[in-house]
């Protein structure tokens, strides 16, 4: 089964960290990604540009509306994701619990449609 781990983080926190703290944070994510790869569960993953760089598009009454910013206005924002392949939800949840995001944000686990 493939699962998407969506990483919800408070974007405003990052610039407030010291360079050393940022390095520590990056190292934690790097180590986590390496662990996913070594376990053979990693499919893909990426950090997203800040939600301020997001645009949303919809068509209403045949007219295209383009708005600045992300779709959802929440306390935390989607900052990145991992796509993993595990035998079941339990294993996916165990990986989610190891993600550095759970310490400062929230990880949402969603199964992909085959």
């Amino acid at each position, binding site marked *: 089964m493939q699962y998407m781990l969506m990483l*919800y983080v408070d974007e405003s926190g990052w*610039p407030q960290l010291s360079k050393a703290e940022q390095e520590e944070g990056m190292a934690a994510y790097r180590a986590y990604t390496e662990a996913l790869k070594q376990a053979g569960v990693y499919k893909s993953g*990426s950090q*997203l540009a800040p939600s301020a760089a*997001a645009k949303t*598009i919809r068509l209403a009454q045949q007219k295209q509306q383009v708005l600045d910013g992300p779709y959802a206005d929440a306390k935390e924002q989607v900052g990145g994701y991992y796509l993993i392949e595990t035998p079941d939800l339990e294993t996916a949840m165990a990986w989610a619990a190891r993600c550095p995001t*759970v310490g400062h944000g929230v990880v*949402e686990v*969603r199964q992909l*449609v085959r």
Partner: protein
Amino acid sequence: MLGGAQEKSKEPWKAGSSMKYILLDYVNESGWPELTREEQAHWLGVYRAYMEAMQKAGVLKSSGGLQQTAAATTVRIRSEKTQVLDGPYADSKEQLGGFHIIDVPDLDQALSWAARSPTALHGVVEVRPMHEGTFLTEGIEPYLKQE
């Protein structure tokens, strides 16, 4: 037309000549079961045609459909305790139902593809620049605070 000329800057996700963008499809999940079988077949065909168009243009990197948010789980650790909750993180009118990752030269082209998405007709498409695996495969320096 679509606005927002892409300007060059030091932001790491804007480096390089080709850019990846993720198109996030927000849809009203409750709508699908209310469609007739013919309507469902129509929409599946429309989505298939859209993905084929992106494939033919050579811009589609990957796609995924997500199961309903009722099957979602959220995980967080607070005060050293793991909290697991049923349901998605965000409670919104539309829910994240799938995504496409495309590789195009600039934001305007990403927005053009988003505007052709069937999701734009009945939901919302969010376009976010990304740079796949950057901080794993390349230096982390661009992401750190300048001193």
